[in-house]
């Protein structure tokens, strides 16, 4: 069997027959990991579904206090970063080293941009005392973000502050864990840039780029759900 091996490659581990088999095993392994990630975030989404169905008004009102414009810009930033990541994988597949490095760095810049905007939003919430922790004495006054916020106090739905706080618990847990994944992603991309600079990737062997791409896109998908669920459920309130 061993003599049927036609291609030998520096990146080929000894326990695989050929580079194709190794690549498929890697993809499958990465997906097994991503499935555990789906379950991990799934738990948070499930908690969100339960509490939102219990306190629909409070969730809409709390969501209305988030900065939708920044959330929207961040969604576009992440979609752009997914595009540059996909193009980086393409460059690795056809063996273009310089464009590969450029696209990886671009992806990192966009990822960092996302985190900076997220940080500005967190700061905004800190100033507004919306962070549900002791040191940031929690209080919630409903100040609509929209320009037509002149509607009278009487038209606004009555809200229970404690239930509004539940939304912010979930908001910070979900976006916080998502941001942590972004930070880990940036670390992974840094490693890739160094590996690419050393010429470790070829059209035959570039699994690290491909698999890190899967991870990056997965984190993007999580945000695709977080954006409408956290930012947009109160957008129709004035």
């Amino acid at each position, binding site marked *: 069997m061993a003599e049927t091996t036609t291609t030998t490659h520096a990146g080929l581990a000894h326990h695989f027959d050929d580079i194709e088999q190794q690549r498929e095993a890697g993809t499958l392994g990465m997906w097994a990991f991503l*499935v555990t990630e789906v379950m991990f975030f799934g738990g948070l989404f499930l908690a969100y579904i339960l509490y939102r169905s219990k306190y629909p008004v409070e969730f809409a009102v709390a969501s209305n206090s988030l900065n939708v414009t920044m959330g929207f810009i961040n969604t576009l930033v992440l979609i752009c970063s997914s595009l540059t990541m996909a193009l980086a994988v393409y460059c690795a597949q056809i063996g273009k080293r310089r464009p590969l490095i450029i696209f990886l760095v671009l992806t990192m810049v966009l990822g960092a941009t996302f985190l900076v905007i997220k940080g500005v939003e967190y700061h905004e919430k800190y100033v507004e005392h919306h962070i549900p922790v002791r040191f940031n004495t929690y209080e919630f006054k409903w100040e609509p973000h929209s320009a037509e916020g002149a509607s009278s106090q009487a038209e606004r739905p009555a809200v229970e502050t404690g239930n509004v706080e539940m939304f912010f618990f979930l908001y910070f847990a979900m976006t916080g864990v998502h941001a942590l994944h972004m930070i880990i992603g940036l670390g992974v991309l840094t490693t890739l840039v160094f590996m690419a600079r050393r010429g470790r990737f070829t059209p035959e062997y570039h699994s690290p780029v491909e698999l890190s791409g899967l991870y990056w*896109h997965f984190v993007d998908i999580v945000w*695709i759900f977080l954006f*409408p669920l956290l930012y947009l459920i109160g*957008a129709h309130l004035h």
Partner: protein
Amino acid sequence: MREHIVSPKIYYVIFIALTVLTVVTWSVAKIDLGRMNAVVALTIAVIKATLVVLYFMHVRYNSRLTWVFVGAGFFWLAIMVALTLSDYMTRGWLTIAR
């Protein structure tokens, strides 16, 4: 199975589709559709996620075994949500004899 190289053209098309859908979901959210708001938002999110999984993540071009793994992940997620909700949503339907 040889590796399938997706052309950048497809990536650009998917990128534009994702951007358009993001703008749509933002615009629709401003209109009060009652319960339909959540349905529309989630439908768009699922479409966007599917596009990313199939094209950016190359699942469309992967082996059937990858499909099974991906499908199993979302299937188990559906089980978790469905069974939990079947508990919470039905509480209070029955009065239990004391």
